[in-house]
């Protein structure tokens, strides 16, 4: 348990909204088909904004909202699976643009669990009282989507969300317990953004992996509906809490049907599982932070409440962080 406080949150999504009906221009699908299987009604899609652009907007909003100076930050972490470059890191681009000269900055990639893995790393970096850091999950997944492949294209969207974190011993907020798990042996069931060995020395002609999202739907569904409740249960055990002690669950927004099934497995009412998947689709590492910010802004989540944050996705990875907000 660490006295870490989520001081502020922010999120942004590209202005361009693509409703389900518009996707019928590019593939054989329908609004009814997408809604009934995923709960998704629309997604926000970049018309040129890069991941670093979305993350910079979130970073600037975070500082403006709380009145911190850029130099007050000790570190900036960006969780993303769709960075602008392999180098420089998205976090380094953000650091440069906002002028956070005292902050070291780096990206992490744990796909849709990235924000949760980032919280765990941030907790380790915030052991000194009054240390301050920024964690952002940001994605432009639209560049990893084959927009003619209906089994995957309907699922994803773009956006970014982030938090300012501080070690604040006197304020009562806590990171209570966490659980991280990686199932690398199942990694092939969800892939995107393959980087081929295309040098002059390459002799492997059989390299047929794709740059776009590919997913074994049933394997991923089984993983999510089993591994997420198990991860939440393990984290609750470490925290000495019962599932009924949790005020709200903020899960990675992949698919409403998966969220419904996880609620059922945990024997909890669905109204404790907050959701914005209808509006944004699956935004991978951004989803938990985007939803958290919406629910803080609306006043649904209040100081002192016990919140479960949980991510799951490519890797395959799953992670849970229990906080007292």
């Amino acid at each position, binding site marked *: 348990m660490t006295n870490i406080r989520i001081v502020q949150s922010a999120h942004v999504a590209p202005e361009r909204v693509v409703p389900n009906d518009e996707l019928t221009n590019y593939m054989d699908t329908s609004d009814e088909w997408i809604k*009934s*299987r995923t709960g998704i009604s629309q997604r926000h899609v970049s018309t040129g904004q890069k991941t670093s652009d979305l993350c910079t907007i979130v970073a600037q909003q975070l500082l403006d909202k709380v009145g911190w100076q850029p130099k007050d930050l000790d570190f900036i972490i960006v969780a993303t699976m769709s960075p602008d470059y392999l180098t420089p890191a998205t976090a380094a681009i953000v650091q440069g643009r906002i002028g956070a000269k005292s902050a070291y900055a780096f990206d992490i990639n744990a796909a849709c669990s990235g924000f949760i893995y980032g919280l765990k790393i941030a907790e380790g970096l915030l052991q000194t009282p009054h240390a301050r850091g920024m964690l952002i999950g940001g994605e432009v997944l639209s560049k990893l989507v084959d927009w003619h492949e209906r089994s995957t294209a309907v699922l994803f969207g773009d956006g970014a969300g982030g938090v300012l974190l501080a070690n604040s011993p006197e304020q009562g907020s806590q990171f209570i317990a966490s659980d991280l798990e990686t199932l690398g042996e199942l990694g092939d069931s969800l892939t995107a953004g393959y980087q081929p060995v295309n040098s002059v020395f390459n002799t492997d002609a059989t390299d047929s992996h794709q740059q776009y999202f590919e997913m074994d739907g*049933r394997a991923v569904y*089984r993983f999510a*509906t089993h591994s997420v409740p198990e991860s939440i249960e393990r984290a609750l055990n470490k925290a000495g809490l019962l599932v009924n002690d949790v005020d709200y669950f903020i899960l990675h927004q992949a698919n409403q*049907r998966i969220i419904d099934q996880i609620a059922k497995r945990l024997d909890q009412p669905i109204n404790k599982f907050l959701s914005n998947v209808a509006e944004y689709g699956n935004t991978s590492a951004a989803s938990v932070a985007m939803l958290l910010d919406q629910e803080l802004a609306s006043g649904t989540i209040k100081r002192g409440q016990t919140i479960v944050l949980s991510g799951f996705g490519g890797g395959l990875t799953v992670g849970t962080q229990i906080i007292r907000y």
Partner: protein
Amino acid sequence: MTNDEIFSKVQAIIVDQTGEDDDKVTMTTNIKQDLDADSLDIFEVINEIEDEFDIKIETEEGIETVSDLVTFVEKQLAKEQG
């Protein structure tokens, strides 16, 4: 486990997932067509069957009726015992 015992467990799983009445789920019921189940319903039914009988169902292809499911489970159980 007898064929009837397998059927009644499979029936209970399908009833739970689709919200249909027991008597609508018989051996000849086509899961997709008769129960209006979509691909995620099928995923969940297979999930539950794998957990209930501790077997692995590699593919849902070829499984259309409740009878197909019961026969598949029967074969898998026999394989594991054999």
